[in-house]
């Protein structure tokens, strides 16, 4: 099947069980809205175009709280508007998925060309200390798979999950093969099984993720963006806030292996490893193949989970690599993290491009050759 990245995201969402979408049109994410405006009502779902992106994420959070898997999609300007409600979903622990098809920025920037400038915003855009999960995709098939993964992680850990997509991946048409017997795992939020009078909505559990009751199912409780106690009521008591915020972080940090996903391509003996994500990982793969043909021991670490940052994956390639190259379509956002993990072990090179054009295999190759 020939599919566009944005269409694959929409189909992936439906496959994951998404039945609510609220959004506001913005290039280069609009096709996701358009497809879902057609597809959702066919499956008894709801599509609504809101008055802005603040409203879009508000509606998505509301729908999720009422028990329906929900998503929104936007680009930089809209993503900036969503930051306050994003923090709300984090503190109130309401699952939802936010797709950000990145454009060049700042501001209205470069709407129809690729860039990867929102990596740090996705991590730190909303105020206050918080955990977050951010995923990326390089192919149309991955757009589909990572959307499903975004929903699964979001439901599993009761946290908003951000899917950061490059404009070229979103607008690219590729052949995608779906096999009839493909097994796709779908995770649904864990609901309380105890009687309502025993339900303590924000009580700690071994996993750090409390079961979630949907509004209207008989478990009446309070949801707030204020720091709250285990019953959900606002609190300013240090002995309640400390454990609460710690749990929010622990539920993610104690599950890195479930959340983090990367591909290692010819890295086992690599003296030079490229660390890339999104469309750049495609160019990097090509560059690795060409470099290998010339006899260089080069590998690729493709990050599919951007946040929490994959320290383990970088440490693994550092076992053999003397040089790490981080090509990015920004001024160096993931490369900072790589340097932080590297701690001077290998030489970390960057290759940054912010002119709205993609990084090509030959640009990566020549940067590698400079270092040889």
């Amino acid at each position, binding site marked *: 099947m020939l599919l566009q990245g944005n269409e694959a995201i929409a189909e992936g969402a439906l496959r994951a069980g998404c039945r609510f979408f609220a959004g506001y049109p913005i290039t280069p994410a609009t096709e996701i809205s358009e497809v879902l405006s057609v597809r959702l009502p066919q499956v008894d779902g709801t599509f609504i175009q809101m008055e802005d992106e603040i409203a879009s994420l508000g509606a998505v959070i509301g729908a999720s709280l009422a028990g329906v898997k929900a998503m929104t999609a936007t680009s930089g300007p809209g993503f900036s508007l969503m930051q306050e409600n994003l923090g709300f979903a984090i503190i109130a622990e309401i699952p939802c998925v936010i797709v950000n098809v990145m454009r060049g920025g700042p501001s209205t920037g470069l709407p129809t060309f690729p860039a990867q400038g929102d990596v740090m915003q996705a991590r730190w855009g909303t105020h206050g200390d918080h955990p977050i999960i951010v995923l990326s995709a390089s192919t149309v098939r991955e757009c589909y798979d990572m959307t499903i993964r975004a929903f699964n992680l979001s439901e599993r850990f009761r946290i908003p999950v951000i899917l950061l997509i490059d404009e070229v991946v979103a607008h690219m048409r590729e052949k995608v093969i779906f096999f009839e017997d493909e097994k796709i795992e779908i995770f649904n939020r864990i609901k309380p099984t105890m009687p309502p009078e025993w339900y303590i909505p924000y009580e700690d559990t071994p996993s750090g993720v409390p079961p979630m009751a949907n*509004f209207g199912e008989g478990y009446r409780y309070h949801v707030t963006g204020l720091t709250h106690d285990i019953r959900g009521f606002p609190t300013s008591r240090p002995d309640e806030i400390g454990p609460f915020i710690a749990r929010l972080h622990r539920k993610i940090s104690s599950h890195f292996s479930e959340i983090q996903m990367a591909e290692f391509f010819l890295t086992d003996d690599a003296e030079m490893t490229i660390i890339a994500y999104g469309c750049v990982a495609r160019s990097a793969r090509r560059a690795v193949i060409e470099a290998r043909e010339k006899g260089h021991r080069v590998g690729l670490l493709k990050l599919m989970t951007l946040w929490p940052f994959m320290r383990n994956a970088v440490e693994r390639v550092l076992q053999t690599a003397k040089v790490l190259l981080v090509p990015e379509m920004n001024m160096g956002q993931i490369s900072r993290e790589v340097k932080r993990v590297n701690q001077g072990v290998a030489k970390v090179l960057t290759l940054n491009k912010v002119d709205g054009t993609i990084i090509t295999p030959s640009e990566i190759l020549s940067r590698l050759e400079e270092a040889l």
Partner: protein
Amino acid sequence: MPEITKLIHHYLRHDKKFPHVWCPGCGIGIFLGALIRAIDRIGYEKDEVVLVSGIGCSGRLPVYVDFNTLHTTHGRALTFATGIKLANPNLKVIVIMGDGDAVAIGGNHFIHAARRNIDLTAIIINNSIYGMTGGQSSPTTPYGMRSTTTVYSNIEQSFKISELAVTAGAVFVGRGTVYHAKLLDSLMEKAFLKRGFSVVEVISHCHTQYGRQNRLGSAVEMMKWQRDNAIPVEKSLKMRPEELEGKILIGVLVDRELPIYQEEYEKIRERAKASAERG
């Protein structure tokens, strides 16, 4: 036990750490009574009621009552409520906002929710000021009045929230005051029972902020002002514009029928399914 005490015991949350956050004498408490009475009279199950609020003194109301309660971000309560209602149309979704919440930061959401005619009830507690943050001017602070950010005088014109709601397309709009408790009870009941986007503007007093800065006296004196300056809509029709200067119209401002979003969307689903079948 008197009837009212029984009601309070039935609907207030017992596990919530009282005392509440409001100043003694605040109008929000009177409104809470009207809300509980209206819900009780209609006989909604607690499980089917969702109270959604924004941020402000008014926004703190839901935490005290035993429903599904959601305290959102400043100005955005209606957007969350929209998602809840569309996701589960069986819920009775009631949104409580302050004036700043509803028509300053949330003004865009307010007019669009009214225009869309989603089946929600929006209640705005209009105390002419930003209470929670300490008495700054709001879009409903009258011209010439003082606030902590207009100490020389407010030079802006104020919004008439109910009239705004009528223009934006709400199917039911009523205005009451916390002094006119009976009227408030009946407006709330009518609004809850109305299908579509219904609005109740509740004129309230913030004696600690607005009252103090403008020397309007105690809570009681401010309520007397409400008594003396409110004119029923029907009576106002027979009055000259000069006589209505500075007065507040109370009662039902509009009660009409317009297509309701959910019902319209049901038709969209049917069409979508039919076209999917045709391929």
